[in-house]
């Protein structure tokens, strides 16, 4: 049978991720696309514990741990040091979660993108601080339950909208920006191969569902990632040196399909679901406008 994604594995089994983890799938596909000549950097995140205790490692390539706020700084340094050694053909990858990207690492990320090092920054977006016990991050979507936004009697769910870091990176005119999903590995790998052709910083945001944090059964990880794209909650797009392309699914599903199988949205009333649907529609229109070339501020 023809294989739709590269057959080589750079991630090993026996890692300590939860059953059905979306972040490990994201790493597996990213490594398949990057290949052997790669250096991976992770800050404090789920991926800092997934390889296991010292001296275990789950990747067959160099794997460097860095403090929470400094993924961007570390990949900049590794890139320049490799260039000095004449190893321009190595890929330097920062692989950070949404807390290490949208909140704590944002300054170092923005600075690394501005300096224009030839690096990849991959954000695996599981929409909360999952490793420390499901605390809200700025990438958590509206309406979600987390341990720091417990719903309870007073209904204190997250009232703010999700901060989409990929949109911020486009505002910063990063040469390559894309969003991808673990449910579409062929698309994810194609995007990384496109990114390799671009000289300069690259930013890719990958939606990776988390069974314990989002409260769903582990077998639904890929299904939920697919529904996020089909309901337009997580639109897939690619931005290469100013040219924006949006993946348009012809028959979008209502957002209920995505929300109803996740326990973290179980408390939402019909009006709140309606509000989410309106926000999704509004963002979709904005993305269509962007594709037509209208500037959005």
């Amino acid at each position, binding site marked *: 049978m023809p294989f739709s994604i590269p057959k080589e594995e750079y991630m090993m*089994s026996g890692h300590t991720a939860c059953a059905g983890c979306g972040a490990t799938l994201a790493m597996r596909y990213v490594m398949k696309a990057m290949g052997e000549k790669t250096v991976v950097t992770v800050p404090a995140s789920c991926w800092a514990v997934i390889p296991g205790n010292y001296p275990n490692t*789950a990747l067959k390539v160099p794997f460097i741990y860095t403090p929470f706020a400094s993924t961007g700084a570390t990949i900049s340094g590794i890139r320049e040091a490799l260039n000095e050694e004449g190893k321009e053909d190595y890929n330097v990858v920062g692989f950070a979660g949404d807390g290490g990207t949208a909140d704590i690492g944002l300054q170092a990320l923005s600075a690394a993108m501005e300096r224009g090092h030839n690096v990849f920054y991959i954000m695996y977006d599981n929409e909360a601080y999952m490793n420390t016990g499901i605390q809200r991050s700025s990438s958590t979507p509206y309406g979600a339950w987390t341990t720091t936004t417990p719903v309870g009697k007073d209904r204190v769910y997250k009232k703010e909208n999700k901060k989409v870091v990929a949109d911020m990176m486009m505002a910063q005119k990063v040469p390559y920006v894309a969003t991808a999903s673990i449910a579409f590995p062929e698309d994810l790998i194609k995007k990384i191969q496109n990114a390799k052709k671009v000289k300069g910083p690259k930013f890719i945001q990958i939606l990776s569902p988390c069974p314990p944090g989002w409260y769903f059964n*582990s077998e639904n*990880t890929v299904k939920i990632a697919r529904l996020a794209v089909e309901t337009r909650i997580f639109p897939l797009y690619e931005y290469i040196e100013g040219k924006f392309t949006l993946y348009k699914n012809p028959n979008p599903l209502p957002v209920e399909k995505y929300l109803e199988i996740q326990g973290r949205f179980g408390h939402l009333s019909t009006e709140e679901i309606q509000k989410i649907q309106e926000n999704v529609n509004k963002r979709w229109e904005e993305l269509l406008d962007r594709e037509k070339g209208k500037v959005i501020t």
Partner: protein
Amino acid sequence: MVLVPTAYAPSSNNKTSSWRTTKPVIDYGKCTRCMICWKFCPDVAIGVTQGMNLEFPNERFAKMEAPYIDYDYCKGCGICANECPFDAIDMVQESEM
């Protein structure tokens, strides 16, 4: 020249088979070798094999590469059974310890 001493052990030294409560079992009579289960396994516990004495739907399948499940590492998440378009994978309860 190695500047930093490096010592590492592959994570595949850890067997994670005791994590699961249900295990996937492939029905090779229904399997069409599409490898979608291999593609979506987060534990890299589905490998590719060839020439094993499997039960084939017909002779044409005998020479094809087929998925097999490495029960040393499978955590029993069930993604393979859920994503299989031909219902060729069943999740079976693990027997009592």
